[in-house]
């Protein structure tokens, strides 16, 4: 088991060796994000900004506008929360080439509690023009997404998690930015999941299969731009959609899917996620369960949706 955030250090070091324009900035969380290892490898291309995320984000903008490719790291509550205006009015507005490797996302942050559990970041970023959002399902997808982000012009947000989770893919996985991955074909219901919920959606689909329900499982790792074609094709086939995310049901994957389908192919959608409330402290397994972010609850909700 590996955490998605563990992809940061090895991937950036590998890319940094070939690409001297890659630089990294952190705000006093470099061990947690893994960027301290990049700093050891390339001391003159790493800047620990201290507890000063706003300054970090605008400094990254200055580096980007001067031809560098900065990777900015911190916890998601701070990269998006504290540095929001810098991200909006400097980075995104000018479509600058800043890559945000944002760790400790969602309620799986666990013990640190609600102040450290972002559940609104995807919603905020979706509304930001020029922004691209990738939520990797596992370590391998995180690694490939980080590599791909350098080739994508403009700002890219990569939403990474804290806990070690079971994998979805293996070493050979090839990630395609902007393309949803149909992991299991099915005809009764489309389960669209993102992040660490993808593995759980697959487990849930296995359980549903035993009860005679044939669910399709799609990993929607790129949330913006959304792969509307794959979504619509699946919804047309099954006629019933369930979204699953470790984020608020407001404005995240569930929001994106609902907006697209209601305009292009009205289909009943049920959203699993955090139900418009703040998180809570506890070991991450217990917190995920508390919010119904488990294969068992996906099964239960899917059955209710099909009644």
């Amino acid at each position, binding site marked *: 088991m590996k955490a998605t955030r563990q992809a940061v250090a090895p991937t950036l070091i590998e890319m940094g060796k070939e690409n001297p324009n890659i630089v990294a900035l*952190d705000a*006093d*969380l*470099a*061990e*947690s994000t893994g960027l*301290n290892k990049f700093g050891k490898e390339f001391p003159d291309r790493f800047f*620990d*900004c*201290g*507890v*000063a995320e*706003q*300054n970090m984000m605008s400094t990254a903008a200055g580096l980007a506008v001067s031809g560098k490719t900065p990777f900015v790291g911190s916890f998601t*509550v*701070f990269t998006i*929360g*504290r540095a929001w205006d810098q991200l909006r009015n400097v980075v995104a507005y000018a479509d600058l080439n800043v890559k945000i490797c944002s760790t400790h996302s969602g309620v799986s942050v*666990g*013990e*640190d*509690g*609600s*102040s*450290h559990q972002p559940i609104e970041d995807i919603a905020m970023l979706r509304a930001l023009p020029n922004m691209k959002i990738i939520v990797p399902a596992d370590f391998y997808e995180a690694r490939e997404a980080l590599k791909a982000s350098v080739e994508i012009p403009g700002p890219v947000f990569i939403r990474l998690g*804290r*806990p*070690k989770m079971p994998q979805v893919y293996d070493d050979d996985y090839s990630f395609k930015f902007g393309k949803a991955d149909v992991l299991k074909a099915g005809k009764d219901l489309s389960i669209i999941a993102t992040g660490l919920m993808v593995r759980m959606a697959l487990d849930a689909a296995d359980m549903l299969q035993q009860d005679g329900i044939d669910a399709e499982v799609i990993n929607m790792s790129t949330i913006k731009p959304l792969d509307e074609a794959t979504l619509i094709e699946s919804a047309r086939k099954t006629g019933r959609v369930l979204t699953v995310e470790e984020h608020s049901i407001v404005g995240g994957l569930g929001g994106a899917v609902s907006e697209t389908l209601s305009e292009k192919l009205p289909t009943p959608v049920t959203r699993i996620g955090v139900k418009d409330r703040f998180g*809570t*402290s*506890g*070991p991450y397994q*217990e*917190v995920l369960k*508390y919010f119904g972010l488990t294969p068992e609850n996906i099964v239960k909700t899917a059955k209710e949706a099909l009644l």
Partner: protein
Amino acid sequence: MKDLRKHLEERALTLRRHTIRMIGKAQSGHPGGSLSAADIMAVLYFHKLNIDPKKPDWPDRDRFVLSKGHACPVLYAALAESGFFPVDELLTLRTLGGRLEGHPDMRKLPGIEISAGSLGQGLAVANGMALAARLDGRKARIYVLMGDGECQEGEVWEASMFGAHHKLDNVVGIIDYNNLQIDGFVSDILEIQPLKEKWESFGWHTMEIDGHDVMAIVEAFDAVESIKGRPSMIIAKTTKCKGVSFMENKAEYHGKAPSGDELEKAMEELSCIEMIEPDNKEGC
């Protein structure tokens, strides 16, 4: 005077014992900044603050704002020992369904004046409380504890200008100056010196004291009461993880719970009478 010193030193030791037991039990939490602030917290909660645990919402009470919210174990210990909630509840730190969130939640626990966790905001909140006290004609004093790493946040300096501009002499800031943040020594990551001169030039009455000498802390709080027309900042020189020798002055214990032998050794050093069984969990 001698008795007061002894009394407060004992209270500080009690706060340190609770801190290690709570974090040891949860196997999660921030020992470093809790232990470095234990003496300051003991003076505030057992000598200085005009508060009443039976009336946590009493409008004339003094306010304490923990701006560096991650140090809440020592705040929870001080609140429990003051009678805001049962001491036994301390061992529910960071558990699901408990009131002792990883960072303080004012909607869950009595005695918390403001929820916290995101650094840099407490001083501005304290300024707001101070303005309200002035508008309402109350004598309440507003104390706010910040970290030295936290002083790297821009908002601290926005609030600094504001406090001086509005002559908020009912605000008392304390900086827990342990020269450590998460990634290393503050002086290596992003120097904040000259700190006293910064606050002075921003218009604050500024003092430097030994943050582990309870009488020096008492005297500083007393002294700043006579300062009128501007807010006061007390820079308290401290040692991170003070009280547990092998953890002292080490960045790694900022947010790491001691476990196994380490935990036992830490509890022995603080002569924790009752030992605890830690809940075994993955680390951060």
